[in-house]
């Protein structure tokens, strides 16, 4: 083929320029370590790169959320731990107070210590978090959740709200628990009240009514018992029957049906876990009813407070005192189990966070590996290409220099 001189020069020049461009591009790739800079470099890989990067960012965000959630949950767990410790102390005090040998001074000392514990608990349930938000007031983190009422007792001023944080796709975890669920509405043991029939003609009154065996009473509950007096021939007797079916109720040791029992004023009458005394002179047909109280609930602070006040209340019969201690112990166990339930939930939330974190870390690692494969440069290949490119460029330069000197005019000069 015929070659024009201009074309020969151009072709040589073109080779040089292409060689340079190739070497420069490779050099740039090696310097950045990236094979794909913009989608234009590899439109097939680009959407994958974008998706992987978004995935990694999302996982980083979940990691941050999980850290925040862990911090909050651990603070709550620690606070609940302290409350639990304090309650165990209260429980010990209640057991001490149940010691029959304790005199009035001893009771007063325990009551004073219990009041201290109430203050301690009040401080703990009003704990604030890092942003000085109250831990246990639900959504209303700026509102102190527990306050002592002027009229006695405590009230909860927060709500039932829970804060949820996303720790993985479609997984929102609660990171707090409301004080209402934790410390309010603790069931306290069943109790009963003695009612004298308004039509009673005698002077007898019922007093010192107390539950002396909670298990027996709970089995009887919510039935009511009727004590009916009959006076015949100067002898006063009473019978105890169940309201539900009118059947006779057994009592005493050994148990026998309490039917036409001889009445001694002030003597303890015990049946179905209940004990009461009737004093005075009942008339024939007088009726006293042991009416069950509806299930009662109380808050944690109220339970401790009631115990403290009950210890020093004047005129408490031994049976009532026993019931006070027994009720306090059962109520405290209920509080503790409410707290333990939540602590267990916190533990399982923390476990969930941990396992989700592990899964997320795995996904992140995989995504990063894939991203690196798709986006990053294969250095071995790039460097060998660079070596080859440099070699070709050098060859082009040398051949250009050699060829450009060739001209017939060099030889026909005279």
């Amino acid at each position, binding site marked *: 083929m015929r070659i024009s001189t201009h074309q020969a020069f151009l072709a040589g020049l073109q080779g040089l320029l292409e060689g340079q461009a190739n070497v420069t591009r490779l050099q740039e790739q090696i310097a950045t370590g990236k094979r794909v800079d913009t989608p234009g470099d590899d439109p097939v890989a680009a959407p994958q790169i974008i998706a992987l990067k978004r995935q990694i960012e999302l996982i980083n965000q979940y990691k941050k959320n999980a850290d925040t959630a862990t911090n909050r949950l651990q603070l709550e767990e620690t606070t609940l731990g302290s409350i639990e410790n304090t309650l165990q102390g209260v429980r010990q005090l209640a057991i001490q107070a149940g010691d029959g040998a304790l005199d009035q001074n001893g009771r007063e000392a325990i009551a004073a210590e219990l009041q201290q514990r109430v203050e301690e608990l009040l401080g703990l349930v009003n704990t604030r978090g890092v942003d000085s938000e109250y831990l246990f007031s639900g*959504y209303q983190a700026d509102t102190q959740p527990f306050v002592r009422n002027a009229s006695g007792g405590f009230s909860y001023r927060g709500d*039932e709200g829970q804060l949820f944080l996303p720790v993985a796709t479609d997984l929102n975890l609660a990171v707090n628990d409301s004080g209402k669920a934790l410390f309010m509405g603790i069931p306290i043991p069943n109790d009963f009240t003695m009612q004298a029939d308004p039509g009673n003609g005698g002077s007898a009154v019922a007093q010192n009514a107390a539950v002396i065996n909670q298990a027996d009473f709970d089995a009887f509950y919510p039935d009511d018992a009727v004590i009916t007096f009959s006076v015949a021939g100067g002898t006063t007797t009473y019978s105890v029957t169940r309201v539900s079916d009118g059947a006779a109720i057994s009592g005493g040791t050994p148990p026998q049906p309490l039917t036409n029992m001889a009445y001694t004023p002030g003597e303890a009458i015990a049946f179905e876990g209940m004990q009461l005394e009737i004093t005075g002179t009942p008339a024939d047909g007088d009726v006293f009813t042991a009416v069950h109280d509806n299930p009662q609930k109380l808050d944690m602070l109220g339970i401790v407070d009631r115990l403290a006040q009950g210890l020093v209340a004047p005129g408490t019969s031994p049976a009532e005192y026993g019931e006070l201690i027994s009720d306090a112990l059962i109520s405290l166990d209920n509080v503790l189990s409410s707290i333990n339930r939540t602590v267990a939930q916190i533990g399982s939330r923390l476990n969930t966070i941990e396992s989700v974190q592990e899964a997320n870390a795995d996904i992140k690692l995989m995504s990063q590996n894939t991203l690196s494969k798709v986006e990053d440069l294969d250095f071995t290949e790039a460097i060998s290409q660079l070596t080859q490119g440099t070699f070709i460029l050098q060859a082009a330069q040398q051949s250009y220099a050699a060829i450009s000197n060739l001209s017939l005019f060099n030889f026909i000069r005279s």
Partner: protein
Amino acid sequence: MTELLNIGLSGLNSSRISLRVAGHNVTNANVEGYSRQSAELGTRPTEFLGGFYLGTGVEVEAVRRITNNFLVAGLRSDTSVYAGAETLSTLMDQLDQLFSNSNSGLSGNMSSFFSSLQTAVDNPGSIEARQVFLSSAEGLTQKFNSLHNQLLVLQRDIGLQVEAVAQQATSYTREIADLNAQIAIATNSGSNPNDLLDKREQALNKLAELVNISVIPTDNNGVTVSVGNGQPLVVGTEAFELTTLANPDNPSQRELAIRSVSGAVSPVGNGVSGGMLGGLLSVKGEVIDDALNNLGRIALGVSGSLNALHNLGMDLEGNLGGDLLTDINNANSIANRTTANGGNSLPQDQVVSVSISDVNQLTTSDYQLDFTGANTYVLTRVSDGVSNAALDPSLTGSLGALPATVTVDGMTITLERPSGAFAAGDRFLIQPTRGFADEIALQVDRAQEVALASPIRTTTNASNTGNAAISAGEVTDKSTPFFAAAGQLSPPVTIRFTSPTSYDILDNSNPSAPVALAPPQTGLTYPPVAPNGILPASFGFQVDITGTPAAGDSFSVDYNAGGVLDNRAGLAMVGVQTSSVLENGSMTLESAYGVFTQEIGTRTSTARNNLEASQTLLEQSQAMLQSVAGVNLDEEAARLVEFEQAYNASAQVINVARSIFDTLLSALRG
């Protein structure tokens, strides 16, 4: 002897001309577009003398230009293709960088927007976290604005470039017409004006670099040049002017047009391909329009989805949330979505307003609305040319009484005309997504006003004996009377079970004595399977109750006053990041941007590949033409030697003639 002298002279002459042609070739070897020439020698007519045909020497018959019209035409078209590909590739590289670079593109802002929202949601009471979120929201809206404006600037620059290129093309058409005239005169005088032909070829090539042309040879070595679908640019000695013309459908856009000698201007239409103009126009129209629409749709997606949720939230000060970002249906945006054709019937009081009814159904296309009669229309989606019933079965093509509405592809078009009905020929360009990337802005300026909480909360009555539990509740519509007064639920309600399977909803303004609502909501049946949504939808808020309630159990719903550690609305907003809110539920906001940058990437990569391919083709056709028409200096050197020798030989012939003449003279002298 004179014959010999004449023969020698003819040799001298032709050798001198040949040497001159070779010299011309040597000196023009590096002139672009030069075709080598060669002097064609021929034998002079013979004389019949004394029974013999005797030669009379040599003569130059022609100085010929060596070229190949087929290769010339090939080079011209390859030049067009290459120039087009080069322009396109440069512009696409620019766009590719603009959108995909982590600093200049949107993805960085988008992910920091959502991650700062997430941080604020993690700590709903923290002013700092909210402040950071507002800053990144501002950053996101500004990025939308700046990308939009960069595209507009690019579009305007390309427009200016189109005008400049059109002017340059016009100057080439004038040059070609002039050369046509000169060549015709020269050709008429009987010889080929080789250098003029080269010059015109060069001008045609320059013109082809600007726009793809077709060249048809005519009489007297003339050419006719046309562009596009055969619109003439040069006819004989007449040159037409390339210019631009406002698009009647969209006066802000200018399109390429031709002004004839008579001054009439007609649009070139879609026939322009190749050349710089082809490259410029394809980016200016298709690519940038598409990019603006894509950006706009993502901006609509961000505003639409987040505003909807933010409006149902409650801020840190206990007020109901407003718009976080610009309302997608604000008056300004609605007005900007329609462009009326300048030639619409008078008075031009037609109002075509477009509001977005469902962002998820929006496409990135423009729409063309044409009236074919007073109440018949054709609505066409520009991207695929589909119209009316084929576009959406609900489009009947005829309107009811004005004002009428047409709903299609997530937008609602309202048509009104105070002066009566529309008229056949009324045209409107509808661009539902075009401008929103420019219009989007942050609407909240105080950190406290970010509505991350939900305005309601639920309470379980402490004395409930059943095991039923109430959900936290959610607000679905804040325009109901329940939310009419600030900072409260009007009235708060309580849900009281009258039996395990039935309940009343009561006004709980006085919690100790709830009263019936107006109208009363009593004796309702409790559906035990969650989510049961036990409040009427008209309330604008909803709760679920699960479990078995006991008669007398009650739950109350109240305003979430003081709810600073509540992030329910925020959680819903965070969810927008991973939910598919665009393209009929197939794309998230970020994946829509990813798909869009990928499209740009694909176009860029294609443009680069086309550039490489067209460069190779151009180099090949240059080489092929050069191998025919280019000067080879070695060849010319050899020719110079050859003609020099011929010249010397011819001179020797004259010398011999002189010598034999001298011999004869001296013989006569004796």
